[in-house]
């Protein structure tokens, strides 16, 4: 982000980098002629979906590929050729001149080594240093990355730290020797948005202070917009487009980039009513079956077939001095002569296939779902006799109502209780107290038979379709199973299964396939078809697109929108991604530590949030627009979510709230209507100055 004069010399150069890995059906070319250039003190964003080769690029630069990989091409770091260096030289370079931060999972740090020792090791493997100086340096690094109380933290093990804290430790380890280049590979992907904002801030500060060049590898265009100077977009092992971040976001030159950007929902700019985001058809190719010619051509609205797009691999064309586009029609797109966005041509869903089809859109009348005072407590057992030593109130008194045909989103960070809420509503976990009524029928006190009938009317779609579909059942058997369980199997049933498959955008050819033969998006469509089989009125969607690639998400979300319109379904949609809720839902409920802190119409809650937590949450979501992202004000939350074992008294958010006073510590705030069904549970509600549009 900073750019003094000396920034024009490349510190890292990658030229013609190709990597071939052995596969079960012969060698697979996972990288094909990748060129990159990273200038000193600058940030290059490397963007792509899973399997596009971005992580392989990072590992190839570091010389960390598996021994079976064959690498060709050149990697030069500050004048040193890394591609010809032997392992010994590379060991000396890694961690000293070029360092890497990996995706923050518990496994990224050695579980049996104190974090202080792990940071110290990064230094001692490269130079001799006295014990006292080493200790001071470790503590200095820990405070540099914003870890409070570094003396105590250094003596702890990774499992004693929160996810955000562990990622800070990884960064401290990587910058311990002031490397010239820092590679951050999905470094914030596993983190909650508020923690992601903190960690990105750490990266920003480190770069400012040490003039480190950062290679930011991510699938999140929002993160790139906020941090990168230049962006390279990868698809199927090749760089398809590269350029300055502003120009590339403002006017993408490759149809893939354009489609990715168009498929995003921006929280700061609500979708105009009546329009829908454009979905990219298909899914990213597997690297062992990359289409000939341009790998994107089967999904590309501009593809000229068969020539040249289906035959010739497009070379990177230098469009303007600063930009490269590897597309046969890139010049036309960049000059504005061609609109790269596909025309939406999806047939509307046939409303007649399910007999229970109802009206469209939210309807008035008795609520479809009523949740009152719902509490779900998990006992924590410990000690010798497995006695209950603590209670986690995962859901701590939640009230919700959902009208027929309405879509209610529940958002919040991991551990806030949203998934437990979803499962409690269907009694997949047993709630402790409160009430849940579906069409007035009490779910929690329902007998077996009643519950069975209720489950016919309320179905669930889970986050990970690969895990939630039985791998030994065909698609037809999976979709038919609810019909059999609920004794709805009759002469028409096979036709109904075919109709359901058609409704979710698959065809009869998929019926005999097994889940592993389908892509993630197709799997999730099967899961949706299964949920629709019994003709439900309520669908609980638990993170339905989280496991999917960005280019596939829009298609599934559009499908969900279509199905709701056609079938009059009510949705209870659980998501950590505010944009997904913004696109799909009418209303939203924001959860923090088991409680709903704010609820109301989506547009209102997200544009003028009244609760300080909602404000911080909205502010933490990166906006995929470099101009906005650079200038907008951020609200950075301090610290981590408190332990649900011992939640703060009064308002549970008060320990991280800037408006908190004594009253917040003693009195639990009651939801109050701020007008138009916008309820806020806060003692000091109100818009944040300088926030909102």
């Amino acid at each position: 982000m900073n750019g003094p004069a000396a920034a024009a010399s490349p510190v890292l150069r990658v030229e013609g980098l190709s990597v071939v890995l052995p596969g079960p059906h012969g060698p697979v070319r996972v990288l094909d002629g990748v060129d990159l250039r990273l200038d000193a003190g600058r940030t290059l964003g490397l963007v792509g979906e899973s399997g596009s080769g971005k992580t392989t690029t990072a590992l190839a630069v570091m010389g960390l590929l598996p021994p079976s990989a064959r690498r060709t091409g050149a990697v030069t770091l500050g004048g040193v050729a890394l591609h010809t260096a032997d392992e010994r030289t590379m060991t000396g370079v890694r961690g000293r001149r070029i360092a890497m931060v990996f995706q923050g999972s518990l496994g990224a740090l050695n579980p049996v080594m104190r974090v202080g020792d792990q940071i110290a090791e990064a230094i001692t493997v490269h130079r001799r240093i006295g014990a006292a100086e080493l200790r001071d340096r470790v503590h200095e690094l820990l405070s540099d990355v914003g870890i409070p109380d570094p003396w105590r933290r250094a003596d702890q093990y990774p499992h004693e730290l929160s996810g955000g804290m562990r990622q800070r430790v990884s960064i401290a380890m990587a910058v311990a020797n002031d490397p010239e280049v820092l590679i951050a590979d999905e470094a914030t992907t596993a983190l909650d948005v508020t923690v992601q904002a903190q960690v990105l801030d750490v990266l920003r500060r480190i770069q400012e202070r040490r003039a480190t060049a950062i290679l930011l590898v991510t699938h999140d265009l929002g993160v790139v917009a906020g941090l990168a100077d230049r962006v390279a977009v990868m698809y199927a092992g090749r760089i398809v487009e590269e350029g300055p971040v502003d120009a590339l976001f403002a006017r993408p030159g490759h149809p893939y980039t354009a489609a990715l950007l168009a498929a995003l929902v921006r929280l700061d700019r609500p979708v105009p009513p009546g329009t829908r985001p454009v979905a990219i058809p298909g899914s990213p190719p597997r690297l062992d079956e990359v289409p000939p010619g341009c790998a994107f051509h089967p999904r590309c609205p501009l593809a000229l077939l068969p020539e040249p797009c289906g035959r010739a691999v497009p070379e990177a064309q230098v469009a303007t001095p600063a930009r490269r586009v590897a597309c046969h029609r890139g010049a036309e797109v960049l000059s504005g002569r061609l609109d790269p966005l596909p025309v939406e041509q999806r047939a509307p869903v046939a409303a007649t296939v399910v007999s229970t089809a109802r009206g469209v859109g939210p309807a008035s009348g008795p609520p479809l779902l009523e949740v009152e005072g719902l509490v779900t407590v998990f006992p924590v057992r410990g000690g010798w006799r497995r006695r209950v030593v603590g209670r986690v109130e995962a859901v701590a008194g939640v009230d919700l109502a959902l009208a027929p045909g309405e879509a209610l989103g529940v958002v919040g960070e991991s551990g806030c209780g949203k998934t437990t809420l979803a499962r409690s509503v269907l009694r997949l976990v047993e709630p402790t107290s409160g009430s849940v009524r579906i069409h007035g029928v009490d779910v929690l006190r329902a007998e077996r038979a009643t519950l069975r009938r209720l489950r016919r009317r309320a179905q669930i779609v889970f986050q990970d379709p690969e895990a939630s579909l039985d791998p030994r059942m065909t698609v037809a058997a999976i979709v038919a199973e609810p019909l059999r369980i609920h004794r709805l199997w009759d002469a028409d049933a096979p036709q109904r299964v075919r109709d359901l498959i058609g409704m979710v955008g698959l065809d009869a050819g998929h019926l005999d396939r097994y889940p592993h033969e389908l892509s993630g998006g197709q799997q999730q469509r099967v899961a949706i078809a299964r949920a629709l089989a019994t003709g439900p009125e309520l669908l609980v969607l638990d993170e339905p697109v989280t496991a999917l690639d960005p280019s596939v998400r829009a298609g599934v979300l559009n499908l969900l929108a279509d199905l709701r319109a056609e079938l009059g379904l009510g949705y209870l949609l659980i998501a950590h991604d505010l944009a997904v809720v913004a696109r799909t839902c009418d209303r939203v409920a924001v959860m923090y530590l088991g409680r709903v802190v704010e609820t109301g119409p989506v547009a209102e809650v997200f544009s003028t949030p009244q609760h300080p937590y909602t404000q911080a949450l909205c502010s933490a979501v990166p906006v995929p627009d470099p101009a906005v992202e650079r200038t907008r004000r951020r609200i950075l939350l301090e610290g981590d979510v408190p332990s649900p074992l011992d939640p703060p008294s009064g308002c549970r958010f008060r320990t991280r709230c800037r408006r908190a006073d004594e009253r917040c510590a003693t009195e639990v705030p009651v939801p109050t209507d701020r007008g138009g069904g916008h309820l806020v549970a806060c003692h000091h509600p109100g818009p944040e100055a300088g926030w909102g549009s």
Partner: protein
Amino acid sequence: MLTFVARRALAAVPVLLVASFLSFWFVRVTVDPTAKVRQSRDPQAVARLRERLRLDEPVVVQYGVWVRDALRGDLGTSERTGEPVSRMLRRALWTTTQLLLWGTAAAALVAVAVGVYSALRAGGVADHLLTTLAFLGLAMPPFWFGLLAIQILAVDLTRWLGLSEPLFGFVGLHSGDGSGFTLDYLRHLVLPVMTLTVGIVAEWSRFQRASMVEVLAAPYIRTARAKGVPRSRLVVRHALRNALLPLVTVMALDVGLLFGGVIVTEQIFSIPGMGRLFVESLRVGDAPVLVAWTVVTAAFVIAANLVADLAYGFLDPRVRPR
């Protein structure tokens, strides 16, 4: 830490009670202690013995008497030798403990070394060779292995080298009346320890290899490589300690298995330990010895598991008892 040990010791009490009761019961059901006095000319001999052993009362009562005496330190006298059971057990246990300690130590060293070496060369020629050897070790019956080892390493090798006495001893743990930690002692240990551990060395090395291969693919190993940690340090500091964790559990479970191996090994090498004591007592139905033997063995296995849990806590901060 201390409370953890105390708790575990307390938890062992019911296990010991159940184990001793079951063995007491089984011995009473299967062995008639009056059989040997049946031939006696004294017509009252059987009746007297029945009364002394309270054989007319329910098994539970008989067991209660045994527990009462045992708590006073009286495990009874052997019906075979007339010697106090506690003294016989103490002597035999000491001998067997030596075998087990050396065996476990040697097996762990060899298995970890072989496992790590195979994992670092996974898929290579050495790995395949060691894998084959491991399966051979698993498949070979210990008594046969012991006899082969005596023939080849003691008899044949001694002849080829033209030595006047066998290179490795194969009767007892010392020659003649020798004692103490001497070269003679070590030469006597080699063959029994090999026979005792051939199976578990094979098993543990396979286990260590699998665990090491898994750890080497872990993200934190990649993190360490990205820091510039050299390979030797990577293997020792980062991979080995993590890879040892699952092995510790398996090792503790296998101590029970080793007691079975001791029975065969001590028989082959004429070592007067727990194994031989068991076989000899079983042959004549020496009830007091058999019951006490079971309890001591159970206590030994429980103690081994406790040690393993403590070692686990030492190795892995995540499960450290608080």
